[in-house]
């Protein structure tokens, strides 16, 4: 993984010291809150309902075990013993004291982690496929380009005050696990007819108040043109984006108002002047960064198909976990292991300090000391020997981290909602807890098959509700929490926005409504169809009738 060089280390250390001085001045009254707010936000420090919240970047979701232990230490020392992994592959701490924030930022810097640009109208953490470098379907490791973009956009003076925040996601696989179509820029790696690897560039995707699926602005972009082309997109946005209305300030609004063809024309004009200039990425630089992501020292193994089959046959619980949470690896004899943070009744994405330490130990023992964070708020060991799977599972099981529900209905994305967030209109986490308790039967979950439920506590959509097979949006109606359901959303390579099912439901009716939707699906399903395929085939009406069929107490 990427390691800081001398410049990086010096810079983040200086920045930590600078933030300490800013906090000291604030506490001494030399800075007003209005003066201080942008300074703390530039370091990822928000004020939420109960305390300060610190959002810490996990670039493209990749962490060393040392960094995971740092997260655990911060949770234990400065917070209430837990952290929350988010849909942007970051971690958030909910109970931070302003007076201790400089110490935290210094400790993060020592572990080569920053919270810089985790807030503000700048290029945010660049996200990617959690299986990057290991997935069997991958064309090339997307993290090299994520890191290139991270270095380019980090404190870029021209793009530190964009009209609004800017999110970039990169996938190196045709099967999109990074939701690139709902980002300001989405990069999809693919091969051209000459067998060269490049990017399809999507622009103007996003969720929030006005959701859009990104549109293709360029079908093919050579990797050495990546920075100049992204810069052209950013520059046009910086000039054309609206600064008079925060709700219309994202690039998706300007792209959709002027149309993709016009936006492309402006970008191409800008790019024409810069494409052969200083931002042409030298091959050596790409290779220099690639070296940071070199494959670990894999042993020369063969797949242990027969042994694994025997072990699975001998233990049904192990078998269920392998079937649910273990993914094929590109290297023979290895496997990718997903660690679900979605046990029934638990808070999606939350993990305690003790469990973070345990995960770090397991990463050292079984996966070359590396941990990944997925945008679906789970963790991953990407390089596990198949011969270690059973022992790893036993250790995860003892930690209550072996819930075999990856990609199943209870693997719910959920934002912090009104339990923590100053923007939220309704609580999201209790809804996730209710649903995961109502659907805790693993046999039933496997019968239902692949199913995504995404929950947001307000229209800002941190819980990606628009692209859940079932999306749940919390709203405030006359001081009470209600929940609007959408159906048919998807964030993969066939991304779609969900359709609104009907009027909002009170919290108590949501699990029952999910049950009715599932029952309707199971009746309408053909063969082993996924819910999303059945929905696309039969449409919304059967589900609407099931949920609202004459007995609704909906408001």
């Amino acid at each position, binding site marked *: 993984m990427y390691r800081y060089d001398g410049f990086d280390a010096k810079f983040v250390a200086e920045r930590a010291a600078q933030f300490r001085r800013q906090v000291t001045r604030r506490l*001494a009254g030399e800075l007003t809150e209005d003066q201080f707010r942008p300074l703390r936000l530039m370091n990822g420090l928000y004020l939420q309902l*109960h305390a300060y919240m610190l959002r810490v970047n996990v670039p493209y979701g990749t962490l060393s075990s040392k960094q995971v232990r740092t997260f655990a230490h911060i949770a234990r020392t400065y917070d209430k013993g837990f952290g929350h992994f988010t849909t942007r592959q970051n971690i958030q701490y909910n*109970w*931070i*004291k302003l007076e201790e924030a400089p110490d935290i930022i210094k400790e993060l810097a020592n572990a080569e982690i920053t919270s810089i640009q985790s807030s503000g109208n700048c290029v945010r953490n660049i996200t990617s496929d959690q299986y990057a470098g290991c997935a069997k379907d991958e064309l090339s490791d997307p993290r090299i380009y994520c890191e290139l973009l991270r270095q380019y956009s980090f404190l870029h003076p021209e793009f530190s005050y964009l009209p609004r925040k800017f999110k970039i996601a990169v996938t190196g696989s045709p099967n999109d696990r990074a939701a690139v179509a709902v980002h300001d820029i989405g990069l999809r790696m693919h091969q051209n007819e000459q067998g060269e690897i490049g990017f399809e560039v999507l622009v103007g995707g996003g969720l929030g108040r006005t959701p859009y699926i990104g549109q293709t602005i360029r079908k093919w972009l050579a990797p050495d043109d990546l920075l100049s082309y992204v810069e052209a997109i950013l520059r046009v946005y910086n000039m054309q984006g609206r600064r008079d209305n925060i709700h219309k300030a994202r690039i998706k609004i300007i792209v959709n108002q002027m149309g993709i063809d016009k936006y492309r024309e402006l970008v191409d004009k800008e790019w024409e002047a810069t494409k052969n200039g200083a931002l042409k990425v030298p091959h050596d630089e790409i290779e220099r960064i690639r070296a940071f992501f070199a494959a670990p020292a894999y042993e020369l193994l063969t797949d242990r198909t027969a042994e694994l089959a025997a072990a699975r046959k001998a233990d049904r619980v192990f078998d269920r976990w392998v079937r649910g949470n273990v993914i094929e690896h590109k290297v023979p004899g290895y496997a990718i292991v997903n660690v679900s943070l979605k046990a029934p009744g638990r808070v999606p994405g939350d993990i305690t300090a003790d469990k973070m330490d345990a995960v770090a130990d397991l990463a050292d023992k079984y996966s070359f000391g590396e941990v990944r964070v997925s945008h679906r708020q789970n963790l991953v060991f990407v390089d596990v020997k198949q011969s270690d799977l059973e022992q790893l599972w036993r250790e995860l099981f003892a930690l209550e981290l072996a819930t075999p529900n990856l990609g199943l209905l209870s693997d719910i994305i959920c934002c912090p909602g*009104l339990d923590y967030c100053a923007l939220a209109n309704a609580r999201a986490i209790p809804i996730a*807890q209710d649903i995961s308790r109502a659907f805790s039967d693993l046999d039933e979950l496997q019968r239902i098959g692949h199913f995504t439920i995404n929950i947001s506590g307000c229209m800002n959509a941190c819980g990606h509700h628009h692209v859940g097979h079932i999306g749940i949006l919390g709203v405030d109606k006359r001081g*009470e929490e209600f929940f609007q359901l959408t159906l048919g959303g998807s964030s993969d390579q066939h991304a779609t926005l969900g359709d609104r099912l009907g009027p909002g439901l009170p919290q108590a009716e949501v699990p029952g409504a999910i049950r009715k939707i599932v029952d309707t699906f199971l009746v309408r399903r053909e063969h082993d169809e996924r819910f999303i395929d059945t929905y696309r085939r039969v449409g919304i009406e059967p589900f609407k009738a099931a949920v609202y069929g004459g007995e609704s107490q909906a408001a």
Partner: protein
Amino acid sequence: MPQMIIANRLVDGLVVFLAPGGEWDTAIAKGALIDEDAEAQRLLEVAKQDVVRCLVIDPNLIQVRVENGQVLPTEIREVIRAFGPTIRTDLEDTGPAVVIAADADRRSGGAGHLRRSTKE
């Protein structure tokens, strides 16, 4: 309906309430109940001086009611600010101070949906 002044404490962000003596307290039960609008506005101006003195951020008036001796904000958001998240019952020191019960209770009885817990 009585009002109360709520803010976040600057040093740690914790939710605090303006008490009758002019000090800030993390317990809503210690907050000053204000019955008159004019008095509420006067105390809000006093509270804003504590912004200048770097004690609190963003003081605001909230509506509260008193039921069975307990002071309860009328808005869910402020109930959660006053008593803490309704989740994370697995962690001793972040357990909910109140439980916001099922919707049926809430719709029928306003603050009747709040139950006291062991934490104050």
